[in-house]
């Protein structure tokens, strides 16, 4: 988009009004990094929403509430007992990008290489969308199709609520890349709930190597009710192809992606299990 105007509304409701008025000629702007992946010469207006108090991380009951314009580097730096969001954030792009790219910017318009939707699906996060009032959407619903469609009439994402990891819940992720700053060849995230070494529940999600991030129900079904062993993880990872149409990446074949993804699922599950076993409260 080519910017012809730059406005800075003083309140959330003013921002919504501006965006409704501008329609397809307006865009909410936080970090602005997503704009550079949108090759359009269409003139547009940027509606800056970074000064509306939407940059914060705080504990609210059983959730961590992250403001939509919180930069990834803040999420990367944050530490708390039931928190695991830093793990993926420290792997996204580079330092300078993490300083301006926001969690909201990464999930309002989902590009195929996005990592955060994968993690938020695994964690069963909630997305808060303001449309005059705030409404909450679960990750399964929110990421069931391109979220950009939810923001065509002045709606603004204001926060993401990430459940705090309860006892015996563990999180694990793998982002397989050629280099530290590169887009993922495949991104996997998993949350396991253990009872002893017995898997009570599993949420496993994948992205980057498939057209759109999604959960892997076939993998989850192969885990639930079983023991948390390497053999179980391996067999479960081999079910992923039923849910995920693996694509070739960077000149390599889909067959390789499949191999890489299955090993990554295995590794993510091992990490999640180790994490869960270490947490009795």
């Amino acid at each position: 988009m080519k910017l012809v105007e730059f406005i800075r509304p003083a309140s959330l409701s003013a921002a919504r009004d501006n965006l409704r008025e501008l329609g397809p000629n307006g865009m909410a702007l936080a970090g602005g990094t997503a704009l550079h992946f949108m090759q359009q010469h269409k003139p547009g207006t940027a509606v800056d929403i970074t000064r509306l108090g939407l940059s914060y991380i705080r504990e609210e009951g059983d959730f961590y509430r992250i403001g939509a314009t919180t930069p990834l580097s803040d999420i990367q730096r944050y530490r708390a007992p039931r928190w695991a969001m830093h793990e993926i954030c420290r792997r996204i792009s580079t330092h300078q990008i993490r300083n301006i790219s926001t969690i909201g910017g990464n999930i309002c318009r989902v590009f195929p290489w996005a990592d955060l939707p994968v993690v938020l699906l695994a964690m069963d996060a909630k997305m808060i969308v303001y449309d005059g009032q705030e409404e909450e959407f679960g990750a399964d619903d929110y990421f069931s199709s391109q979220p950009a469609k939810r923001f065509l009439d002045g709606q603004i994402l204001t926060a993401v609520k990430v459940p705090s990891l309860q006892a015996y819940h563990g999180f694990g992720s793998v982002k397989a890349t050629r280099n530290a700053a590169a887009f993922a060849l495949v991104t996997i995230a998993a949350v396991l709930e253990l009872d002893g070494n017995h898997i009570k529940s599993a949420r496993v999600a994948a992205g980057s190597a498939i057209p759109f991030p999604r959960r892997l129900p076939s993998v989850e079904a192969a885990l639930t009710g079983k023991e948390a062993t390497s053999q179980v993880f391996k067999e479960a990872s081999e079910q992923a192809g039923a849910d995920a149409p693996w694509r070739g990446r960077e000149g390599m074949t889909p067959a390789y992606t499949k191999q890489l993804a299955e090993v990554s699922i295995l590794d993510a599950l091992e990490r999640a299990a180790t994490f869960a076993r270490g947490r009795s409260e």
Partner: protein
Amino acid sequence: MKKSPQTVTFTLNGERKTFITEPDEKLLALLRREGYKGTKFGCGQGTCGSCTVLLDDRAVYSCLLYAKQAEGRNVRTIESVGTYENPSEFQEELVKNGAVQCGYCIPGMIMSATSLMETEETFEDEIVKEYMDGNLCRCTGYEKIWGALRTVLDKEAAKKAKEAK
């Protein structure tokens, strides 16, 4: 389509300044146009780091940022770091260590390192690499830049530990 010349006001290297700009102008273009040429163009895509400046103490790619995004904020460029008479410690160490080859990446490296030194209390290798991972260099293999940085950070860590007592 009407193009409206506008202004943007921000603190640049400690001085509050107002510049003419356009909504579409990037911060890098504005800085270089106004004579702050220590900040470099290397890719224009937010990947190489030679355009790194500090925005409210955080390292950012000025080639990606719209100038208007700096409104009311605090921008620092390489021109605010050291002089011939009084170079910064990191500049001295880089020069002494033979870490400056073509030099094109160096101002960006210095800005990222400045943010690191100001923000963190301790400087484990992992943290240092995360702060520096957005500054590419093709000449040096990073070895001597790392050596200079490590020297300065170890001194800084000792100083901070002492001050904390």
